[in-house]
């Protein structure tokens, strides 16, 4: 997992609330056997609408999603996080996240930044007035700021997730940092324990 310190990218206003994981990526897209390529299923139900925000050229290359409350509720599918990442999102900003979604995000390296509802509103206004406008998300300082400085505020993230993202540590990376302990344990396992090879 790459280290996350600060990110600056085009903001995309998704003016909806209660976007559950079925809306982020419907079940029919889950049949894939890879961890990549889920971007085509992202918000699939809305993608046919030419007015949908992801279909507007002015938000092309967006990497910071700004969305309404209760984003990522519902089924625990990790694919919802993968789909956002595969599409190119590095940060999702909302005033409230589904718990499992937030946990899955931290594990996969997607920053779920929780802000006050009024900050979301201010960002939406900024992005509509300045299409293609960029947002800087600083994980070290826990701050977000628009390019023109019209919105500057802080966001919430728990210390543990912040530390993991800053260090670029996924669960496996953390465990592998204890490789010595694993090797020591392995050396003491009884020889009669079964092996498959």
């Amino acid at each position: 997992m790459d280290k996350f310190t600060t990110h600056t990218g085009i903001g995309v206003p998704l003016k909806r609330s209660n976007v559950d994981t079925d809306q982020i990526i419907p079940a029919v897209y889950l049949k894939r056997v890879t961890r990549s390529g889920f971007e085509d299923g992202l918000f699939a139900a809305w993608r046919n609408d030419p007015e949908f925000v992801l279909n507007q050229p002015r938000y092309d290359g967006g990497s910071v999603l700004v969305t309404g409350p209760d984003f990522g509720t519902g089924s625990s599918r990790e694919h919802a996080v993968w789909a956002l990442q595969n599409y190119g999102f590095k940060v999702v900003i909302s005033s409230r996240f589904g718990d499992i979604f937030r946990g899955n995000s931290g594990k996969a390296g997607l920053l779920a930044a929780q802000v006050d509802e009024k900050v979301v509103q201010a960002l939406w206004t900024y992005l509509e007035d300045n299409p293609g406008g960029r947002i800087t998300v600083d994980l070290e300082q826990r701050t977000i700021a628009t390019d023109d400085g019209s919105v500057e505020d802080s966001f919430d993230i728990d210390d543990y997730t912040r530390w993991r993202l800053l260090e670029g540590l996924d669960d496996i990376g953390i465990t592998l940092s204890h490789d010595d302990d694993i090797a020591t344990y392995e050396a003491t396992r009884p020889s009669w324990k079964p092996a498959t090879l």
Partner: protein
Amino acid sequence: MGKTLSEKVWDEHVVRSTTGEPDLLFIDLHLVHEVTSPQAFDGLRLAGRQVRRPDLTLATEDHNVPTVDWDKPIADPVSRTQVETLRKNTEEFGVRLHPLGDIEQGIVHVVGPQLGLTQPGMTIVCGDSHTSTHGAFGAIAFGIGTSEVEHVLATQTLPQSPLKTMAVTVNGSLPEGVSAKDLILTIIAKTGTGGGQGYIVEYRGQAIRELSMEARMTVCNMSIEWGAKAGMIAPDQTTFDYIQGRPNAPQGADWDAAVAHWKTLVTDDDAVFDREIEVDASEITPFVTWGTNPGQGVQLGASVPSPSDFADESARAAAEKALTYMGLEAGTPMRDIKVDTVFLGSCTNGRIEDLRAAAEVIRGHHVAADTRLLVVPGSARVRLQAEDEGLDVVFKDAGAEWRGAGCSMCLGMNPDILGPGERSASTSNRNFEGRQGKGARTHLVSPQVAAATAVRGTLSSPADLVPAAV
């Protein structure tokens, strides 16, 4: 204070323990199948990681393999891709695979014990919730999600927070003709589907000691259906006898060392469980489900309950919804419910003993008109063993379909599915809406009840059959 069985096994696997963090547990055996592993292997590939211990990993194809024409290419493209991906991944990462057509192929939870790979005191995981099956040997065994599969592949460990312990003591003996399936369905109906949440459960008591290994696996298999993380049974002579001589069992001096250790794996007399439940085995009778979760069950001799029988508001609403889905009228005797298909198989009841029990009931009888009996052995070995014993002939003579090994109609992922509104009596473990096909209606039953039901066409026990003229 002494320790419970699960605490002993847990403590033996702690690689690292720090306050405020989950324990890092070493995993002795990681079972892999085609559905939950592709993204895990892809994750390794993306991160440039290897499988740490291919020698503690075993893969088989089970969930979406066809049970007829298994020598031909798989027709469904999604299933075919998953199976082919497993083959490529296991080859690339050096993992042993028993593919379709291989003599050791079968449902992952049938294959592990059958090879002797499942042994007392182990930690066993698999990307499948019915991994709890292996707890029948006194192992800590539980299902994991795909990112945990990747974690175990890469590190052979898993961070786990300690669980609460529960004892389910089954006193007395099961009456003649009552099986392990009836016992576990009764326990689930008693506790509700969430009753075991957060617990590792140890099944103990006389009736448990009297069960065969296969019956113990049936009990532990369904631990997850009442919410438990894992189910365990302390190993004893029955366990040792089952393992001895199997391909992956310890041999010679290793065997003696292993058994000496296994004998220590019992709950100490002064150990304390967080919760204890007692069940009287002598009161148990054939048990079947009427609803859409495994806790919605009654004795076969009873009638479909009415929502008003439930004091709890949410149970009442659930019952109402279940009855509508199941197309059942409250008050209908369970024995009057007509089924279209009987499914004998799955990791709950697809072992040789289950097939023998069902064959015994059906011998000399014929499957009812308009009823279909599907017999799906849990593994290729079980199929061959059954054929050696002539059980296939008994089933075929009775008009049943004799199939190849796999999960089959346990879940609607392969071609063996029910049509909308069709009703089954199934020896599997889940009667959820749509589990056996869209709109399909499932009654969970034991192998004996399945066989008798196939003969009469309505839910029945062997005692309902007029003796066959053999």
